[in-house]
């Protein structure tokens, strides 16, 4: 892939994006969602559609309610009004079609990597042999083979989040909800992580909803970026970066198209920064 083709986002879009045919089949629909915490208005009438097979990012400054919106989609936090439709059905709580990756990893410190990854299947009552086989597959997929019998405190932050991601994959949900998954990971590992995430997105053919406050991270990994503005949280813009992800990571990060999108988003958000 040469730099000229990358520099033209529209061109890159045409040879990419096989999933555009299913635009009328949103995997998750957010309909008029509002959320109040007492007198505080966290989210005001959010309407969004998340395309199947795509990675959509919720991006915004702190206080814009992006994590709240993700947790409402996950069914972990009740909305004050509005509804969430997943695969055409309105949902009120967590369901098997959604899996969550937590910012603080949420690993059980008393359980090994293997048991942590298999925990979603354990809760569903799958047999030990079956769930360990599935767990082992995803442990390898996230690059943690050899660490199956380690405990979380024996792993680095980055490795712990790999456990969290493997656990979310192992329940075979349609939608993966990632709440700032790399914010507790150091910068070097973060980049490696983003590249690995793109590889997993490619391999697993699932839908991803990703929350981050890093503009670069959002542009690098997303098919679509939903910009939220704070107090109360509202959708302020939707951007499709149209980056060709078949290029190698270093080229993408130097691509003028990529840098333009980063700049465009920054211009949109800068007045929220104090």
């Amino acid at each position: 892939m040469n730099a000229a083709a990358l520099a033209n986002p529209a061109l890159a879009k045409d040879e990419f994006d096989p999933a555009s045919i299913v635009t009328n089949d949103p995997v998750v629909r957010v309909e008029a969602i509002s959320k109040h915490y007492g007198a505080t208005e966290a989210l005001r009438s959010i309407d969004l559609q998340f395309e199947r097979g795509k990675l959509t990012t919720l991006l915004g400054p702190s206080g814009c309610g992006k994590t709240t919106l993700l947790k409402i989609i996950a069914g972990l936090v009740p909305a004050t009004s509005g509804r969430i439709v997943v695969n055409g059905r309105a949902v009120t709580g967590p369901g098997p079609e959604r899996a969550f990756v937590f910012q603080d990893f949420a690993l059980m410190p008393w359980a090994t990597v293997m048991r942590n990854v298999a925990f979603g299947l354990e809760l569903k009552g799958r047999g030990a042999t079956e769930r360990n086989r599935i767990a082992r597959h995803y442990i390898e997929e996230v690059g943690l083979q050899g660490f199956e019998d380690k405990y979380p405190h024996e792993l680095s932050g980055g490795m712990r989040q790999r456990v969290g991601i493997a656990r979310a994959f192992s329940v075979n949900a349609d939608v993966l909800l990632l709440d700032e998954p790399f914010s507790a990971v150091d910068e070097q590992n973060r980049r490696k992580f983003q590249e690995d995430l793109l590889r997993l997105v490619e391999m697993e053919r699932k839908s991803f909803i990703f929350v981050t406050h890093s503009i670069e991270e959002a542009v690098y990994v997303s098919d679509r970026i939903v910009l939220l503005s704070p107090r109360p949280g509202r959708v302020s813009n939707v951007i499709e970066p149209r980056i060709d992800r078949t290029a190698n990571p270093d080229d993408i990060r130097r691509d003028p198209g990529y840098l333009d999108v980063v700049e465009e988003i920054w211009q949109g958000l800068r007045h929220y920064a104090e």
Partner: protein
Amino acid sequence: MSVMSDDTSVAPPAGATRMQSLRLFAERRRSFWVVLSLLALFTAWEIAGRIPISFAFPTFLDTLAAFFEMVGDGTMIRAFFLTLQPLVLGVAISALLGIGIGIAMGLSDKLEWLFAPVFIVLQAAPMAALVPLVTFVYGIGLVAKTLAVIMLALPVIVLNSYKAVRHVNPSLVDMCRSFQGSRRQQIFRIIIPDASPVLFAGLRLGVAAGFIGVMLAELLITPTGIGDLITYHRSVANYAHMYAAVAAIIAASTVTLALLQWFETNVMRPEKRRS
């Protein structure tokens, strides 16, 4: 110390290597320091007894001799048999009831409102003052003594269990919910394991309080068991035997707490064994 060992590493004389291996042993084994600390304590006791600081204060060796004499003639074993009855019964009831009530309070706001004030008052109350009341109602038998143990052990176990559940990592609970874990799975696979360190801390405090309770009962209600040995030997000025009885109950309490700790790290939280 390190300078000396550096020198000796070139041509180690016999004395220095022994020092080194002793130091290595001390670094690896925590028990070395336990033994050292006990040795220091017993030596100080022996010296204090020999001065003597009081004619009613026996030396360590006299006390040890009295202890073996009492074990030999069976009085110590019989005394422990009597003391352990209300103790084991009381601690077992307090542990089961206390952890149960505490966890229930942690899980339900209604039960918290119902029980929390009661146990906070009970924990603050000087329980020894209530022991005569228990005698008044339940007499001087096993029931009264068991109640004395429960009165001391239960509040601390309840309040710690309650706090343990309230401080469970909320994101672990969310994680369990996000994978559609049932309430039951949430309680038994997430909340109780995550609460277990604080749960066990409460249990250890409860057991220690139980020992206080049983001694209060045996000294304030009627002298039986170890309490009887203490009272009797004090009354006949047999101080070595009295101290042996006191030391024996302290040792029993310490060993029980150590066993509890061992159980916690080896059975409940296997990850704590590593590193």
